[in-house]
């Protein structure tokens, strides 16, 4: 069997993913209890098509792919013992997806929730790379009248009073808001990230509704873990609404890099920042989608791949933190060959206990300690012992671990642009969705985000990186 055929058989095809979206998404739910009413209300919500109504996220192909994946992942954990159960599950699934659609004020969240709930794997490299990027750049716009009110509420002054100049139009979208260029009265050029009003409360209430919608589904035993992941997703989204928290982490990370590292973290301007507004130095550079068309030579591709990898390892090793949002919109390729890191809303610091477990697993993996690795895998999947695990699951997780560790175990430059390597990862993640594997510590959702994001980025960059060398260099334990 050729490689290509093998890939086609293992990977989830786009067609299958799209077929997973319930056809009867507009059908009214039959129940009349409060939950039924909620579902009915959500299910019958019409999809607005006018561009003025910006609250519907599922209009774009990219969002549909994310939701299709989610639907596919959910079906794999359904328990459909009889027709009645199947209908109930489908009704609730349609409502849940509808609800996710209306959460499109933060389009990026659809992707994030999708990833966290289903460990969202990738379809094919090119498609997913574009999907990730476009979703992140599609947040709803706030007009200047609204921005002015947010500023008056937060700082008691209009942007025009606070800054020497302030661009009325945003130059970039963030998942929970948008970014404007401005100049401080002291002359510095800054980027001002402004959050859409009432995000935190909206997320809370939407997630509560989502939980209510999913709760009555008849799921396999394994499926119940999805609620832990949902809790985790909510924590992540909630953290992202607190720009003070992001500013603190940004300052911490800034300290980790010196001029010799060629990695730049913008300075936070505290006097112009708070929970809802974050003002940082403006970095002039290109995002990946603008950088790639300049046809950078191999040396530059390798250089930036190396910087990205070093940045991620440094944050992990020195701050014991998973930088969990390595999507292209968060990296800037500067003209002087430095790398800019510009978004720090999504990260997860490990507790001492988690750190110890992590080091143990890593050691076992790197030293070829098969028993130690199995033990670590069992613990990460919340099993008391290796014996409790089904052999297929253990085998699957071993393969996943090996794929994740492969670049660290390879001497010399590792070719991240190798399609075969990337595809193997996609196939492995797809397998998890097909098998409905959800039983694991939610920490590994963050890992999955980091690893899949990093690998996608370097795949698109077509970088050769001496990953093992960086890993050893940045190791703090």
């Amino acid at each position, binding site marked *: 069997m050729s490689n290509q055929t093998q890939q086609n058989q293992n990977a989830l095809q786009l067609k299958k993913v799209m077929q997973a979206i319930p056809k009867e998404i507009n059908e009214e739910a039959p129940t009349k209890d409060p939950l039924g009413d909620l579902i009915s209300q959500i299910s019958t919500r019409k999809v607005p098509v006018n561009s*003025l109504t910006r609250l519907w996220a599922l209009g774009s192909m990219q969002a549909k792919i994310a939701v299709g994946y989610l639907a596919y992942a959910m079906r794999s954990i359904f328990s459909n013992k009889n027709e009645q159960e199947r209908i109930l599950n489908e009704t609730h699934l349609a409502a849940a997806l509808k609800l996710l659609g209306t959460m499109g004020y933060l389009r990026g969240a659809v992707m994030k929730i999708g990833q966290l709930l289903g460990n969202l794997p990738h379809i094919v490299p090119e498609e997913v790379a574009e999907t990730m990027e476009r979703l992140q750049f599609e947040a709803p716009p706030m*007009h200047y009248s609204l921005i002015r009110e947010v500023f008056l*509420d937060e700082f008691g002054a209009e942007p025009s009073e606070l800054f020497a100049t302030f661009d009325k139009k945003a130059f970039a979208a963030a998942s929970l808001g948008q970014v404007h260029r401005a100049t401080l009265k002291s002359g510095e050029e800054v980027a001002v990230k402004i959050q859409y009003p*009432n995000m935190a*409360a909206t997320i809370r209430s939407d997630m509560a509704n989502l939980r209510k919608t999913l709760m009555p589904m008849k799921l396999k035993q394994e499926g119940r873990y999805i609620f832990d992941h949902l809790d985790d997703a909510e924590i992540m989204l909630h953290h992202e609404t607190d720009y003070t928290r992001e500013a603190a982490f940004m300052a911490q990370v800034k300290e980790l890099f010196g001029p010799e590292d060629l990695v730049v973290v913008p300075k936070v301007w505290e006097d112009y920042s708070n929970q809802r507004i974050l003002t940082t130095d403006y970095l002039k550079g290109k995002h990946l989608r603008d950088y790639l068309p300049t046809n950078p030579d191999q040396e530059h591709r390798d250089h930036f791949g190396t910087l990205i990898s070093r940045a991620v390892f440094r944050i992990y090793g020195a701050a014991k933190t998973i930088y969990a949002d390595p999507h292209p919109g968060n990296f800037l390729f500067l003209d002087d060959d430095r790398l800019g890191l510009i978004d720090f809303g999504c990260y997860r610091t490990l507790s001492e206990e988690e750190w110890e477990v992590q080091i143990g697993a890593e050691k076992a993996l790197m030293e070829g300690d098969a028993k130690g690795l199995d033990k670590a895998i069992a613990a990460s999947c919340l099993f008391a012992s290796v014996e409790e695990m089904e052999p297929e699951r253990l085998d699957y997780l071993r393969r996943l671990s090996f794929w994740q560790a492969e670049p660290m175990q390879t001497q010399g430059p590792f070719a991240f642009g190798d399609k075969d390597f990337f595809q193997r990862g996609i196939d492995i993640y797809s397998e998890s969705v097909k098998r409905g594997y959800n039983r694991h510590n939610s920490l590994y959702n963050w890992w999955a985000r980091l690893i899949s994001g990093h690998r996608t980025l370097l795949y698109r960059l077509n970088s050769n990186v001496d990953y093992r060398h960086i890993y050893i260099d940045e190791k703090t334990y």
Partner: protein
Amino acid sequence: MRITQKAKEKTAKNILRAAEQLFTDVGYKDTTTRQIAQKAGIATGTLFNYFPSKEALAMSLLAEEIQQGRGDYLKRRSGDEDFGEDLFLLISSELRRLKPYRNFVGPVLESTMSLFSKESSCPAGESTRSEHLQMVRDIIHAHGFSKIPDYISTTLYWSLYLGILAFWSTDESRNQEETLALMDYSINVFTQTISNSAL
């Protein structure tokens, strides 16, 4: 001795300032017309020559602020706002002026600007309504929306506007940010309605 117009205006202003002070210190509900008259240095009966009720008095206070808010709007407007943005600026400028009185906007508007009466129960309420709606009509026309008859668009708008005021008056979210999101969404819906090309 005849009381001059100027003296009348001065007394009316004194009453309004006294009421403003008491509403802030004692609360709207617990303030009586007698206390207001006392603080303004006039007899209670005299107060009623100026304002027929506590609600009408409070409405005059709010009307002053709304008028100032409209003035702020005209100053803040740059002219390059689109329709929704323009309308948002008008409403938010008024709300900002009304902010110190937020805790009694509800009961006052309820009695003076009910949706069920064609006219407000007091002149201050009536002029506030007609001036505000005139401004909204001007904005609608300035942006070229003419597909819907004025009485329909203003009726739709007015119920939306009162809804926003009612929500805002009891909004407990930080800086009433929930109202900002509501306004943004509502104005979008309104814009969509009056610009609907199918009509």
